[in-house]
């Protein structure tokens, strides 16, 4: 799939984030939008998955460690054919399969329930170990927030993955630089993230998380990396694509109201027209 097509899909994924959080009147649009290109690449290019066979034991696994940005995950799954995009409007409603944080028992295609920060990366590490034990070649991907890297468990998991040489594991950090209380430096500076992962025996790749050439090259490099896990630190813009949300800390966990919804959708329509 060429970059243009990926960009078109990513733009649709972003629209789904706005539709979902608007309908829910809550949720986390900022980090969903920053990761939309990554979600799109994973679900349309990188991972060996089949929406018609979501429990295939030989599929690649994805664990959304920063589970609060599931509006983006649900949206890409809808685009990929796991369910009708109309269902995105049920996000966070009673009885919905689209829980506020991902739950594997509600929605086929979710490989692990997540949401409590720091735990998803450990679970993904356990899955990677499991593949090695079973001599399977499926791979494991996990997405962390940069603020999430303040959780000690992230580094417990990194130590384990590095020590056990789990080269079938790719840890992606969405480095949009913002968390609830401010910039990540202001809150409790987790930088340098790349040097930290290196110190934990990871192969580290720094990229622009909105450049599909760089995303593509990074995942290729990760596949070719043997004997150590890979960390991809991707610089992103929180709220990417929606004018009034970009780089605004206030759009971490707030839904657009009706008026904001109209503006956001227009922004994304405009971007769509250029693609």
């Amino acid at each position, binding site marked *: 799939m060429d970059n243009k097509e990926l960009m078109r899909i990513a733009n649709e994924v972003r629209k789904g984030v706005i539709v979902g959080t608007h309908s829910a009147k809550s949720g986390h649009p900022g980090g969903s939008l920053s990761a939309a290109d990554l979600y799109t690449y994973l679900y349309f290019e990188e991972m060996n998955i089949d929406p018609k066979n979501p429990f295939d034991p030989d599929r690649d696994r994805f664990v959304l460690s920063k589970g609060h940005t599931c509006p983006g995950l649900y949206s890409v799954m809808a685009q990929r054919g796991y369910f009708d995009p109309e269902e995105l409007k049920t996000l966070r409603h009673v009885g919905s399969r689209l829980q506020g944080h991902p739950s594997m028992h509600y929605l086929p295609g979710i490989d692990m329930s997540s949401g409590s920060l720091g735990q998803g990366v450990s679970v993904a590490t356990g899955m990677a*170990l499991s593949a090695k034990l079973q001599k399977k070649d499926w791979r494991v991907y996990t997405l962390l927030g940069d603020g999430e890297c303040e959780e000690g468990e992230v580094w417990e998991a990194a130590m384990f993955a590095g020590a056990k040489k789990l080269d079938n594991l790719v840890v992606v950090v969405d480095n949009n630089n913002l968390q609830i209380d401010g910039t990540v430096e202001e809150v409790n500076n987790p930088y340098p993230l790349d040097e930290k992962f290196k110190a934990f025996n990871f192969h580290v790749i720094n990229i622009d998380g909105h450049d599909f050439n760089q995303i593509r090259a990074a995942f290729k490099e990760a596949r070719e990396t043997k004997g150590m896990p890979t960390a991809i630190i991707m610089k992103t813009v929180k709220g990417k694509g929606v004018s009034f949300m970009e780089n605004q800390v206030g759009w971490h966990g707030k839904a657009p109201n009706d008026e904001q919804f109209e503006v956001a959708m227009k922004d994304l329509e405009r971007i769509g027209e250029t693609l």
Partner: protein
Amino acid sequence: MSEVKKIATRESYGNALREYAEEYPNLVVLDADLAGATKTGIFKAAYPDRFFDCGIAEGNMMAIAAGLAATGMIPFASTFAMFAAGRAYEQVRNSIGYPHMNVKIGATHAGLSVGEDGASHQCLEDLALMRVIPGMTVMNPADDIEAKAAVKAALDYVGPVYIRFGRLAVPVIHDADYKFEIGKGEILREGKDVTIVATGLEVEPALIAAENLKNDGVDAEVINICTIKPIDEELLIASAKKTGKVVTVEEHSVIGGLGGAVAEVLSEKMPTPMKRIGVYDTFGESGPALEVLHKYELDGEGVYKQIKAYLGK
């Protein structure tokens, strides 16, 4: 009189893991730098490729176990009860309990009988913490035979299981042909005046107390409850109906463990006067295990004394 065979249930745990490894090829064992103490080292020596030391990082270990279980393995994650149920509580709750993962938690060194290490390592809250997680099966075997049977039952059951093991060698009270079933209690001694419900290491003191009570003219029934959750309601209700008085005995806080579980059942379904014997909302302390148990009146003598006082004898 022949010497009664004594063995710590942590030892039974390590032996059981090794024993069942061949029958269950997906069984793997995780530990957090305590393999020598938890006795998972017995498994490690026999199956080094199926043993993973997670280092001193218990929260990560529990979530690693969840990842293994999510992809078809049967992990036993082991550390001391304090760190399994305490430090890693939220990982157990969110990454094992909520997704109902097929993870088995082998928690050793529970209760006061840790002994010399003292209060920081004497977990008196684990049964309460684990029992409150939806879908979690909680077991506390009384001896070698029951401990091995609990491991086997956990392997055959699909879902999260917490099993509590002890550091102190305890007498073997079951016969080799003991039939164990998750959720089923066991009447060890029939009586009509009072029901003594005990779990784990306190089963033996309960039996001693019952024997002594005979001399006071009290005919005590003794029930062993290994599965704290789901608890054997039927057995408890029938016995309470028969004797009209119930005493629970556990090496755990009287809040939320066996005593709490029995009180919940009886207060709703067969209201019965009760006495909960255990650790009375306090921390433990250092000392040789038997001396600490004596001080906290949780040895045979202490349990007898407490029940006698409750009955006004």
